[in-house]
């Protein structure tokens, strides 16, 4: 349990603490959003329509690297939040940039994975219900990460321009929450899509 006996800057205004709570609530909604995608994917997993199956497609090495990239980026993002609470703009921005690069690495690998499936394995969105489910579930996560990258760039610019103010601090904190959350989602994709795909 964290014992913060002072109020961190991102919570220091009413607006800041409202927005942070609002964002948590939004994350609650995102959990449900992804759970709907997961249930569709799992129901359709065996509906391969004679096309490639998960066993045919998934490469352990590839998805492990993707997983590690995201796990580490979640860590570096967390270090950023610590710097934020130290009001250290430089440290914060530095960690955010590292996070961003790891995120780009992840997106790059994922794109590469998708392109391989489509061009080499002829496994496209249109091939089977299973692949529709796969591309849309994993793709929705990827789209979230990409959106996170654009958003993080905006936050970094604002931090550089204005320093740590209640407003920028709140934004930096929220983008951190978002990023960790995407890591949580990925853990479930790793489990329910990739590992499960090796088993079933």
């Amino acid at each position, binding site marked *: 349990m964290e014992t913060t006996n002072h109020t961190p800057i991102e919570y220091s205004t009413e607006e800041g603490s409202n927005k942070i709570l609002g964002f948590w609530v939004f994350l609650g909604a995102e959990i*449900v959003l992804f759970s709907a995608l997961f249930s569709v994917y799992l129901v359709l997993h065996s509906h391969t329509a004679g096309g490639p199956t998960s066993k045919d497609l998934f490469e352990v090495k590839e998805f492990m690297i993707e997983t590690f990239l995201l796990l580490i980026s979640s860590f570096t993002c967390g270090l950023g939040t610590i710097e934020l609470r130290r009001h250290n703009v430089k440290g914060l921005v530095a960690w955010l940039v590292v996070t961003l690069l790891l995120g780009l690495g992840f997106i790059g690998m994922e794109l590469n994975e998708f392109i391989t499936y489509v061009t080499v394995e002829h496994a496209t969105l*249109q091939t089977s219900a299973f692949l529709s489910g796969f591309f849309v579930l994993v793709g929705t996560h990827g789209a979230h990460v990409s959106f996170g990258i654009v958003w993080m760039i*905006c936050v970094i610019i604002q931090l550089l321009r204005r320093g740590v103010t209640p407003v920028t601090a709140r934004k930096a904190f929220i983008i951190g929450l978002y990023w960790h959350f995407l890591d949580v989602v990925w853990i479930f994709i790793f489990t329910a899509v990739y590992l499960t795909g090796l088993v079933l």
Partner: protein
Amino acid sequence: MIENIKSFLGSFFVTGDPMIYGADASIALATIGIVFYLTYFKKWKWLWDEWLTTVDHKKIGIMYIIAAILMLFRGGVDALLMRAQLIIPNNTFLTSQHYNEIFTTHGTIMIFFMAMPFIFGLMNIAIPLQIGARDVAFPFLNAVSFWLFFLAAMLFNISFVIGGSPDAGWTSYAPLAGLKLDPGVGENYYLVALQISGIGTLATGVNFLVTIFKMRAPGMTLFKMPMFTWSTLVTSIIIIFAFPVLTIALALMSIDRLFGAHFFTIEAGGSPMMWANLFWIWGHPEVYIVLIPVLGIFSEVISTFAHKTLFGYKAMVWSMIAISVLSFTTWLHHFFTMGNTAWVNSFFSVSTMIIAIPTGVKIFNWLFTLNKGRIEFTTAMLWALAFIPNFTIGGITGVMLSLAPADYQYHNSYFLIAHFHNVLIAGTVFGVFAGLHYWWPKMFGHVLNERLGKWAFWVFMISYNICFLPMYFIGLMGMTRRMYTFPSGLGWEPLNLVITLGAFGMGVGFLIMVWMIVYSAKYGKRDTTGDPWNGRTLEWATSSPAPEYNFAHIPQVETVDAFAHMKEKGTAGNIYKAPFQAIHMPNDTGIPFILSVFFFIAGFGLVFEWYWMAIPGTIGIIVSMIVRSFKDHEDHHHIPAEEVEQTERAAGRLS
């Protein structure tokens, strides 16, 4: 070349039906009329400054309600057209295709663009005032929600004249709604418009949840909140956790249709039943989204006009919480008949009927609020009283539907149609009408005419029963829903005739109501006290209509029925006692409107698969968001103390 243009226009505009040409003409005339009016009276700037850019929850609430009443009219005209077609057997007033489009738009518009916005409008009006706040937690987001809803509603409505309306029912079951069986653009309208307004709805949910959690006046603990606030809190939770499932369902169907995926198709392993599953995971909670807020309204109205505190406050709260938790575990009762195992059907039968228990607790608590009261029969109260027996009929027939083996006989028959109109109209519609009468003085500073209001009430309520009670029987006789015509000789003729007469009676009731609003705007009694009903909650503590900042001083709350308590103690005047301080308020902004226009553009592009239009629209959305992100630290201003004093003086509150 000319031929090309002609054939394009021929498929772009819906053609070949005099009724639609009539609609085209009236839409064009109305648009010209509005543009002319705004230009001639130099109202453009007023429109932009006062309405399009406002972030004031009270104005947003008014806009929601106006839009919802318009949509009630549109949905109601749809209903009357359907009933006109079904007045006699083998009627040819409407073609099958036309009828299918009409019931689809009727259901969709009534639920998404009438019931929900009406409720959001009342929430916007009342919630910040009830909890003693200056605005909602996120005023900017609130404006975004409204404009997304509004432009989505417009997008949905133009399908009538441009491209063709959706025709697969408001439930839009696959594979019927899939590209193969339904290749036109109508279904795209459904998918895109609901997606856009769904985003706005989700934002509303988050907004009101945080508002109620964090912005309550000092002293107002959760268990001292007014009942409408509680119901809004519970509803927000349902919205937040139900709408993402609709988002996914719509997105997957769109991907199927636009990009050839196979989620719900018959080919390549798609699972049409998965659509039903997702739709109802959202759909059942949705019916409580449109019900629970009005339960809050009824609590307010009944306790105000019985001149008593609410009976069983805690039980009222916990039963709503129970309903919200249970509402997520009953969805399968909408497809009992899709070959589920006996275990599955048993589970969902029982989980469904259990909801009757907390609902019943509420019914009895209202009855006992009336007990030992001093009942005053205002129009608002009449709507609330009529709710009790009429809704109970809908509720118990719901319980009858929840017995799966019996539902095999009711499913998709007019018995079902009767059930849900009984709950939706006696619940939602009576509820928003009660709320409209109740809060009208707070919105506009005058009271609605009671005599006309009562006329509208009796005509509408009696016709409503004439219209929907016979439907139970015609359903048991075997008439199914969504039949554009019915054969003679089955004994269905008399009941269908009665039903149609009832429907037109409701139309008359609606017209009286519109007349009442117009009449009251001119001759309505002014409300100078701010407290026309001897109210019990904080919205009555400020003047009518409430000033921009709501309360000159944030009230201090000690008990439930905070304002009644203040009046008893003689502290009500503290809210507007000099000296005043400057008040911090959000700035108006045009971004929500502009953002939503980009959504509209992108959406229209997607409907027609015109990517040259959809992509710039999407870029516009992203750019608007970035602009907002870079400007949001400078979006506040202060109302100086002197101005507060002037306002209060003008409202007659300072001597």
